[in-house]
């Protein structure tokens, strides 16, 4: 689909090569002094819990519980194996049962699939959502006429795009336009590039998502949020520690189409994220979303973040710089119109 992804493959190959070199050289990068108890969370020299490193949130466990598992929230080992296989099968894998166009598309995607994206969470949950207990987003409240209109318009734009006939660059979603990708909270796993690098300094935690390169600087000094008049694509974050947990509140989202998660209402959308170090290799990432103008009640999800090998690195993800997609989609649509392929 785009050339930029081929860079990713090279990087993946390089990373694999790198790891082999390290292994071959016989170095033992493991630190001797592993924490004896899980409760001893490492601390920075200035006393904050230390969350630093590169973390990966890939999993196949879906945000919402699929109907196929009924009401089960946690599976047995045996059920989990079957669940994982089915999810992996459904995740646009290389197959030969969808017709030529679909099969080629899936085979292409297979190329980029992060293998970590094919595994369910270690606790064998059937959904990332833990509350409500049915593992699904609560029902929507009736939307205002303006929002309903915007939702219908967005649906029509998506339909044009999916049919390969976008009218306008604004018919593309924000990720296709390289404005925001997995850097919009809440952070959710996707097909590739699920890395997040955390760097801390006194008074700050900074989270740099791989896609795309926008470091989220979170002040911890108790300062107020930006004035309500200032809006940002990724909002405005403030953090504080509750014990060893980093708690982050984010507000001031833009009202642009797709500028808030699931097109929630930017004025009332309220997200609280909690980052807790569970052990040397795991952060528990929990987020709670509340928006009385969008969902009938608040909901909460938990995603494990796993520390990647210290020799693995997070690389630059450039998106807009080589975004041939938009030109190709639009000029392809114009060419199809010329040939009369408008439906």
């Amino acid at each position: 689909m785009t050339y930029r992804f081929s860079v990713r493959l090279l990087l993946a190959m390089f990373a694999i090569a790198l790891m082999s070199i390290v292994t071959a050289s016989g170095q033992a990068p493991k630190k001797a002094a592993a924490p004896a108890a899980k409760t001893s969370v490492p601390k920075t020299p200035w006393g904050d819990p230390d969350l630093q490193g590169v973390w990966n949130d890939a999993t196949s466990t879906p945000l919402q519980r699929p109907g196929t598992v009924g009401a089960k929230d946690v599976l047995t080992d045996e059920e989990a194996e079957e669940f994982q296989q089915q999810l992996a099968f459904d995740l646009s894998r290389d197959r030969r049962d969808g017709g030529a166009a679909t099969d080629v598309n899936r085979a292409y995607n297979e190329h980029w699939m992060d293998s970590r994206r094919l595994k369910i969470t270690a606790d064998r949950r059937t959904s990332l959502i833990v509350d409500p207990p049915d593992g699904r987003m609560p029902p929507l409240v009736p939307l205002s006429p303006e929002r309903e209109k915007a939702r219908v318009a967005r649906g029509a734009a998506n339909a044009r795009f999916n049919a390969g006939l976008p009218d306008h660059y604004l018919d593309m979603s924000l990720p296709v336009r390289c404005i925001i990708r997995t850097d919009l909270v809440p952070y959710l796993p996707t097909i590739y590039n699920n890395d997040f690098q955390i760097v801390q300094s006194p008074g700050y935690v900074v989270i740099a998502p791989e896609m795309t390169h926008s470091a989220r600087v979170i002040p911890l000094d108790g300062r107020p949020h930006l004035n309500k008049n200032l809006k940002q694509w990724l909002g405005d974050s403030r953090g504080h520690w509750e014990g060893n947990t980093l708690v982050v509140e984010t507000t001031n989202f833009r009202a642009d189409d797709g500028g808030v998660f699931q097109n929630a209402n930017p004025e009332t959308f309220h997200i609280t994220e909690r980052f807790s170090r569970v052990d040397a290799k795991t952060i528990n990432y929990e987020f709670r979303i509340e928006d009385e103008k969008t969902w009938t009640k608040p909901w909460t999800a938990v995603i494990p973040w796993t520390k990647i090998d210290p020799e693995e690195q997070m690389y630059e993800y450039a998106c807009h710089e080589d975004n041939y997609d938009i030109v190709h989609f639009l000029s392809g649509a114009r060419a199809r119109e010329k040939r009369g392929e408008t439906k």
Partner: protein
Amino acid sequence: MRKNFRVSITVIVVAVAIATFSLAVISITGQQRAPAAQASPSTAYRPKRMADGHPDLNGIWQAMVTANWDLQDHDAQAGPHPEIMGAYGAGPAGQSIVEGGEIPYQAWALQKKKQNFEKRAMVDVSNDKKWHEIGDPEIKCYMPGVPRITYMPFPFQIVQGSGSAILMAYEFASATRIVRMNYKQEAPTPSWMGWSRGRWEGDTLVVDVSGFREETWFDRAGDFHSDELHVIERYTAMSPYHLMYEATIEDPKVYTRPWKISFPLYRRMEKNIQLLEFKCVPFTEEMLYSRFNKKAGN
């Protein structure tokens, strides 16, 4: 309306190019000095230190130079669209931040720089091959590379803690750099912001940056480099309120010798200062893509 607009852009760009060409001719006859031996700026200042004993460079910093318009001496100048932008598009005058005043281009490269300048406000994404050929990457909101990101007229934040990386977060285009400290591995692949590896030399943070994409420019004057660009940056605290920034720039494909720039970075002192978003992609889409939209009546 848009067609007329394009035509007038061309006229103005040509006019500005002629003016600049004359300036460039004057400047290449000027004297060139070899860069001084590499040494950190002398300072009696003893910076605040981190737990590891290294100077604390944390903060939000910003350059006050006008090098983003031109690294070398430049007069105040009209922007590329004065017929609609008036004084809004104009650039300030500024003194060269290049040691010795001039960038030591090879002859062919000086010609290329002039061509870059002439086409700095033009874009053509109609075919993949020509995608990066013309136009200042800044006008397209591409990541500006190093050192340009440091003298963009936007703040950036140094995040220095106890880990193996120092992070630099930039307001412009939400660009980010991870400076890997004492890291041996070479760049795995070219990137826009380059591959940054840091070390301390005394109280100076030295960052070796390589593995660049060749497409970035240094300024709106068309100053450029190749994929062999190698930048060595030096950050030295001079007071609680300013750092000295130096960068040595090597590229044997483009210059006759390494050259050096330097300027101070000032701490942003406003209460509750923070980086804000400058996600400029949406500001470029009309320019880049509108010609591919469905036209009324099509």
